[in-house]
Structures are given as C-alpha cells and as structure tokens.
C-alpha cells in the first residue's frame, strides 16, 4: 500500500480532509484578524492605524465571501448545504456554524461597512453614471440622507456594531478551532487550547495580511506609505505574535509533559512526516524568524527603507507560518492511525476538485473580490469625497 507504514484502519488510509480544509481555517483566520485590526481603530481608538481601517474591513469581507467555497467544493452534494439552514441541527457544532457565518457576514461586516461608507455611497450615486449609478443607488437602499445628524447616528451605531463584532470575530474563528479541539477521538486536535490558539494565530495572519496589502497597494498607487501607521501595525503584530507563540508552546509543553498514550505516536510523527512542515516551516521559518525580525525593529533604530523591508519580509513569513500551522493541524491530524500503530501519507492531487490548482484559485479569488470592492468603495484616506454643494 503506497505511503502506509505500519497499521492503519481502512478509513484512515486516504485522507478525508484535503488541502481545501487547510485553506478554510486560513481564510476565516484572515477575516477575523483583519476585522480585529479594524476594531483597533474604532473601539480601542488607536488613531495611527486609521489609514488601514477601511482596507481592513474590505479585506475581511473579500475573504469572508471566499471562505465557504472550499467547503462547498469539498462537499459531495454542495446543493444540499442550504439544508443546514432549513433544518438546523442544534447538537452539531459544524451544522450550527452556518449561522455563525451568516451572522458575522450580514449583521457585522456588511452592516459596518455600509454604515461607514454610507456617506460615500450617496455621493457616488450622484456623481457616477450608467450601471455604476444604479449599483450605488441600490446600495443606498433608497435613502440619500447624509445630514450631519444622520451621520452622527451612523457613527454611534457603527461603534456598537464593531463592539459586537469583536466577540463575533472571536466566535467565528474560535468556532473553527472549537470544531477541531472538540474531536475527542483525535489526540492531535483534542485540546481546549485549540480555539484560543486559532484566534491568536488568526490575528497574526490577518494583521500581517492587511499590513502587506496596505504596503503593496500604496506602492502600486505610487503613494507614500504612512510609516506611523505601519510601525504601529508591526508593533501590534509583534505583541500578538508573542502571545500566539507562547500559547502554541504552552500546548506543546503540556503535551510533552503529560505524555499520554498518544504521545509516542505523535512525537514520532512530528519528527518524521511533519518535521519539515512543523519544525522547519512553522516554528523556525514562520514564527521564530519573523519574531526576531520584528523584535529588531522594536529595539534598534532602523532606517525607513530597512523597516519597510523587514516588515514586508516578516509579514510574508508570518503568513507562511500560519498557513503551515493550519496545514499541520488539518493534515497532521489525519496522518497517524488512531490505533497509534501506523502512519499514512497525504498526496495532493493537481487538477481534481480538491486539488492544488483549485486551492491556488481559491487563494487568488479573494484578492479579485478585494480589487472589485476597492474599485467600488475606495478605502484610501486621501480620496475622501466632498459632498456636492448644498442645494443639490
């Protein structure tokens, strides 16, 4: 049997959860992380990160729209997925997740973006022509009231929505961690720390993603990068990364010290089949290297150019590290036999429905969504629109 070593139960030889299920928590993590960065400005009043506020919201929306697609492609009967909503199953964590997703999409993200952009949408609906005008008109919901009073109300409501949004973002991604962490039969997953680790790693990847998107988009638009903003983001990235790393190490040390009946098997797996993706990519390349780089920016006075390079490098490495973490959780949890007597291998297909090319496509798709959203709702601070003269 190809790739099998020792004894596997029949249903363990082929992995049921493919690279798309790796992609899924990675993408929802970016959503939660980007949203939390946005809430820094809104709720925690970190003025410096304001230039990324709207971009972070649009990033969260773009990735949230992409998030269910890997799951749909994984399902044998995707057309049956709405049944999850029609006949809710209250004791199934996975089934209830549909509601969490919908709540977060509609009641938090779309509402917050709409409130924040309402003034722009109304102005754009007056300025633009043709189809665009129609789109903006629909987006105003037929109300063009942008009096100072109404905008003040939006501001207050938006604040409340963000406040509700923070626990919702935690819920969205904590839930993904919970689904893994609550699988009693799988010792690689079953840990109450799982949701917490997922949330903090989500924040790391989301913040890194928005930072990278902001830097590259600003470069492409040939504008100056707001260094105060990027410095602040990098600082938060550093702190949250430390918490994330500590939690992961806590989990690891706890497992090593506890050394329960699964330990020998998992230990062997980490030293053989998962060595490259776990020790080399996730811990050394994707966590320790960016942490050291970010640490340098905090203690040494570097020039602006150098800082930008360090931020870009550590941002990319952090994303790779978090992706590797999702990979090691999802794929790693299926490589060993629940009898602890054998190991299998994951062979990624290339062009199948759950193959490599589809995974690449689903990674690029949110960037296309984001591009459309940015065109439709410009998030750049210097493009703030002026209302037409009174009497309009």
């Amino acid at each position: 049997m190809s790739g099998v070593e020792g004894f596997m139960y029949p249903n363990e030889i082929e992995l049921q959860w493919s690279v798309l299920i790796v992609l899924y928590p990675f993408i929802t993590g970016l959503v939660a992380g980007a949203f939390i960065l946005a809430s820094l400005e809104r709720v925690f009043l970190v003025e410096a990160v304001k230039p990324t506020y709207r971009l972070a919201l649009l990033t969260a929306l773009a990735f949230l729209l992409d998030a269910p697609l890997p799951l749909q492609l994984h399902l044998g009967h995707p057309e049956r997925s709405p049944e999850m909503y029609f006949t809710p199953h209250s004791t199934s964590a996975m089934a209830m997740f549909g509601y969490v997703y919908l709540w977060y999409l509609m009641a938090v993200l779309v509402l917050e973006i709409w409130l924040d952009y309402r003034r722009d949408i109304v102005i754009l609906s007056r300025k633009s022509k043709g189809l665009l005008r129609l789109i903006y008109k629909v987006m105003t919901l037929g109300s063009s009231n942008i009096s100072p009073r109404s905008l003040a109300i939006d501001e207050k409501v938006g604040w409340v929505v963000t406040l509700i949004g923070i626990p919702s973002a935690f819920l969205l991604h904590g839930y993904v961690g919970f689904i893994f962490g609550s699988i009693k039969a799988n010792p690689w997953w079953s840990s109450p720390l799982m949701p917490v680790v997922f949330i903090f790693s989500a924040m790391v990847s989301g913040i890194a993603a928005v930072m990278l998107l902001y830097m590259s988009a600003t470069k492409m638009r040939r504008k100056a990068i707001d260094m105060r903003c990027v410095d602040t983001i990098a600082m938060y990235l550093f702190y949250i990364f430390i918490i994330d790393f500590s939690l992961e190490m806590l989990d690891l040390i706890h497992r090593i010290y506890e050394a329960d009946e699964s330990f020998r098997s998992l230990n062997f797996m980490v030293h053989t089949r998962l060595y490259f993706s776990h020790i080399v990519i996730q811990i050394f390349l994707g966590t320790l290297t960016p942490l050291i780089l970010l640490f340098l920016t905090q203690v040494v006075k570097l020039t602006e150019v150098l800082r930008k390079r360090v931020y870009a490098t550590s941002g990319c490495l952090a994303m790779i590290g978090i992706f590797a973490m999702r990979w090691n959780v999802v794929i790693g949890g299926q490589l060993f036999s629940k009898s602890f007597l054998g190991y299998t291998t994951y062979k990624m297909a290339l062009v199948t429905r759950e193959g490599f090319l589809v995974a690449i496509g689903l990674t690029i798709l949110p960037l296309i969504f984001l591009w459309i959203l940015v065109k439709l709702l410009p998030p750049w601070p210097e493009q703030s629109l002026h209302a037409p003269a009174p009497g309009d």
Partner: protein
Amino acid sequence: MGVFKDAGHLFRFTGLFVLAFLAFLLIRGYVVPKTFGQYGHYRAAAIGEIAGRPVKFAGHKACEDCHTDIVDVKMKGKHAHVNCEACHGALAKHADDPTSMTPTKPDTAVLCARCHTASAAKPTGFPQVNPADHSNGVPCETCHNPHSPAIDGGGAK
C-alpha cells in the same frame, strides 16, 4: 421626531433583514418535507418508503434449497462463512423464479481482489495476496475453486 427621520436609513436596513427572514421562512415552508422531525432529525415518511422497496437479497437459506451441491462444497471450505450473494450479488429475483433470470458468472479478477488484495489495514491473519504478483493476470478460478478456495484442502479443480 427628527431622530426617526435621520435614522430612516437604518430602518430600511432592518427592513431588508426582516424581508430576508420572511423569504427564508417562506422557502423553508416549501422545501422542508412535511413529515420532517416527526420522530427525529429526519423525514418520517422515509421509513415507509424504504420499507416499501422490493427486497433484493434472498439470503443464504434461499440458495441452500436448490444448490445443495455447491452448499456442500462450500460448507467444507474456507469460504464457509462468506455469503453466496457476497460474491454473486443480490439474487432475490433469481431465487423467486430461477428461470426468470440466470445469474452471470462473477469476474474473479475483480471479485477476489476486492477482498484479498493485501492492505496494511487488514488483520495480519487474513489471507491476502498482491494479485499482480500472485497470479499475474491469470483468473483466480484457474487454480482456486471459488466455493472452496484452499489449494491443499482438495478443492482445486
């Protein structure tokens, strides 16, 4: 009343939610089967529908009445506990009226490999071979009697 006027757009947004919820309820009323949830988290009418399906398998006892010769051979061989229909497929129709359909002979290259191809997941005590090495494309029944497969058991043709 100015507050209500200036918050009008929020009522529109809320209205959108209410509309979406009503649409959801409406669709739900149409697509969820009437008997869903009567006994549990499934469609109760499915029980009757499944029970009403024609029986496809006749069971070992049915074959024994007519194919006594084969049953006698099989009883003594290693396949004693393998059901006839595990190899021949569902034959309720044939057992009811043998002349109505004559079962086709199974293709042993596919059939035997299904159970005997070596795999790490099978208990070590279970007889297993790698068909390509073991018979190299020669049909299994050339050497093994399907009804009493052991070579040394005197079952060989």
